[in-house]
């Protein structure tokens, strides 16, 4: 899309009032990130504490709040407007994991039945209705960005 086109589309959305900004997108299966390998540019192995520091720095940069939980995991949350998501982060010296914990106002469903448009999936070829956990696509995007940010922090070590 060219820039003038994107302006036109955005203007149209503004004109429509757009409603709740996040509401109308098709829910997608939740993507967890188990056992992501730790990779540094130097190739040297890290202590769990260093991985933790990298995670803390990444969450700070991406505007997530982090709390520690008993058992050594961290709970990272990100809130914006009326929406909020929480992700469980566990880590060791050689890997870390990001897992969905819960969310507020993100159209979450444990059974994939959160799309109010009944014929939506049958109208897509090769797209069966998901049966597992589904959520607004922003969830996967934000968690992917956090994961990428952690990778970048680890790269510097």
């Amino acid at each position, binding site marked *: 899309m060219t820039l003038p086109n994107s302006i036109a589309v955005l203007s149209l*959305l503004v004109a429509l009032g757009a409603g709740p900004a996040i509401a109308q997108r098709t829910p997608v299966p939740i993507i967890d990130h188990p056992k992501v390998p730790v990779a540094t540019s*130097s190739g040297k192995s890290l202590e769990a504490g260093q991985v933790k520091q990298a995670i803390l720095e990444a969450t700070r940069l991406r505007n997530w709040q982090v709390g520690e939980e008993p058992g050594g995991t961290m709970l990272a949350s990100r809130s914006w407007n009326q929406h909020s998501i929480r992700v469980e982060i566990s880590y060791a010296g050689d890997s870390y994991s990001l897992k969905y914990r819960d969310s507020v106002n993100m159209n979450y469903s444990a059974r994939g039945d959160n799309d109010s448009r009944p014929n939506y999936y049958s109208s897509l070829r090769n797209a069966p209705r998901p049966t597992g956990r589904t959520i607004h696509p922003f969830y996967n995007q934000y968690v992917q960005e956090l994961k990428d*940010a952690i990778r*970048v922090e680890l790269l*510097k070590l």
Partner: protein
Amino acid sequence: MKARLLLAILFAATLGAGPALAQRVPVPIIDHPNLSVANSSGKPLQADQVKQAIQEAAKAKGWSLAYEPSGRILATLVVRNKHTVVVEIAYAPDKYSIMYKDSVNMKYAPDAQADPRVNTANSGPNRSGYTGGVIHPFYNNWVGELKEAIRVQLLKT
């Protein structure tokens, strides 16, 4: 062009939804291998002087640096806590290079074919058949600015 860009960002901000950089078509990543070191006096430089010029330029442009055991420099730019790019800078007394290393929230794809928009939406003469990495066009701007700053800094050395 600048005014249009500003307008587009303003509209996106008004909506409050979605990343501001989202709507532009990814472009091929421009790497900068084997740039020659040139200074105004014409006398040869030490590797350390090249390194210092890189450090000065990075500082002026807001990039943070990390040093790899190999002697290469990892330069990271974080923009509005939303977008991150990482380049690897190698240097010697007579040349240096700036290469893509990593990114967060920059629409990066290692293979242009993975993004169907790249080949269809762009009519550039050399686009079809391109199979390298693609990224949001701002990447090339930001890295280009860093490259210019290093060049100017070397001139002063």
